[in-house]
């Protein structure tokens, strides 16, 4: 397992949302402003990395029969810690994400990685797997937010960026974002649940298109030298 390969898998070829098709509830529900997306993505990244490390560290001492129950307890523990810390230090994010922070417990990404990866790999590999899978998830959230916010209300970086008194980042979710075109011309339907379904559907379709294309190219590249050989013969 080398890090480069893990990086590519987490972000592209085995992206949790776009390829493994898991953890979609939150992806569609909270991606209305960049603030929510980045906050949710980073929360999942932290929880996933911690859980991966702990699960792979204790993988040899836990009995096989109750491993799922133990995974769930470990995950719920970390989720509660992040939940409490958010409530204490970034209350705006906690209020915006609401019930979706505790619901990270049942996010298939985390239990899926614990079951499929950390059980069989070392602590180090699991740590990087957590970071890269988390990054892959965060990237998808960010793309969803940017697309929905831009087309829906003509903004970029809502909640996270404030430009009223010069450019600055707001961590309390109060920033109005950069208005690119007047909100009245936006397709506000993209801010509704409908927009979540459609945007994610198109993103996955785009991913399938790209993967299929790169696969075809590879096959052609493999085929090409053979054809040349034939011609020579």
């Amino acid at each position, binding site marked *: 397992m080398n890090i480069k390969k893990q990086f590519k898998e987490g972000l592209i070829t085995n992206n949790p949302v776009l390829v493994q*098709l*898991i953890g*979609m*509830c*939150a992806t*569609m*529900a909270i991606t209305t402003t960049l603030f929510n997306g980045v906050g949710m993505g980073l929360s999942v990244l932290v929880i996933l990395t911690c859980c991966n490390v702990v699960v792979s560290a204790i993988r040899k001492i836990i009995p096989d029969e109750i491993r799922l*129950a133990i995974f*769930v*307890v470990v995950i*719920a*523990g970390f*989720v*509660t810690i992040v*939940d*409490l810390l958010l409530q204490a230090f970034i209350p705006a994010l906690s209020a915006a994400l*609401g*019930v979706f922070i*505790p*619901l990270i*417990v*049942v*996010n*298939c990404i985390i*239990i899926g990685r614990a079951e499929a990866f950390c059980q069989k790999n070392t602590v180090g590999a699991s740590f990087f797997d957590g970071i890269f899978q988390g990054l892959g998830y965060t990237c998808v959230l960010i793309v969803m937010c940017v697309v929905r916010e831009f087309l829906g209300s003509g903004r970029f970086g809502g909640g996270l960026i404030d430009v009223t008194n010069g450019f600055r980042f707001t961590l309390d979710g109060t920033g109005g974002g950069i208005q690119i075109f007047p909100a009245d011309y936006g397709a506000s*339907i993209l801010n*509704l*649940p*409908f*927009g*979540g*379904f*459609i945007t*994610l*559907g*198109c993103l*996955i*379709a*785009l991913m*399938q*298109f790209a993967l*299929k294309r790169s696969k075809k190219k590879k096959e052609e590249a493999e085929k090409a030298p053979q054809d040349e050989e034939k011609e020579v013969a």
Partner: protein
Amino acid sequence: MLTQIIAISLGAILTNNFIFSQFLGCCPFLGCSSKVDTATGMGLAVVFVMGLASAICWVIYTYVLVPLGLTFLNTLAFILVIAALVQFVEMFLKKSVPSLYSALGIYLPLITTNCAVLGVVLLNVQNHYNFLESVVYGVTGGLGFMLAIVLFASVRERIAFADYPESFEGFPICLVSAGLLALAFMGFSGMKIV
């Protein structure tokens, strides 16, 4: 009292449908909806577990966690209760109601990780519902889930014959049609019991 109950039911089934407006339970919604039969089975199992989980978690929250000042443990406690509950229901049905077990059995293990179930118990706490309201919210939330998944399964059976771009094969076309269904459910918004 009665109007409150009706308002909660109507909200959970139509205006704030768990799937189409709150995005809770999307994984089984997309995973188990290729046939109307399986969708109905999954829907029934969810109604059952959501109702029971709401009742049990309300009791545990009100009589154990609140008096002991341990409300911060609620996520941990609820997920353990749901996991244990699902196991018990499975064992119970297997032994005493085999016919129901053969209909619902295979869906039960999947429900533990259904975020609609954990979601409904957390929302009960957040909304300060009393016992009756919690159970009603759980059962009708499940009914809303069932309505959504059965409707969606019938749509999917027809998509099989539709002509769409190759890249939309599989999940993307499902998400797009689910989006259109969500749009239809928006028509219910604003319904109100006075």
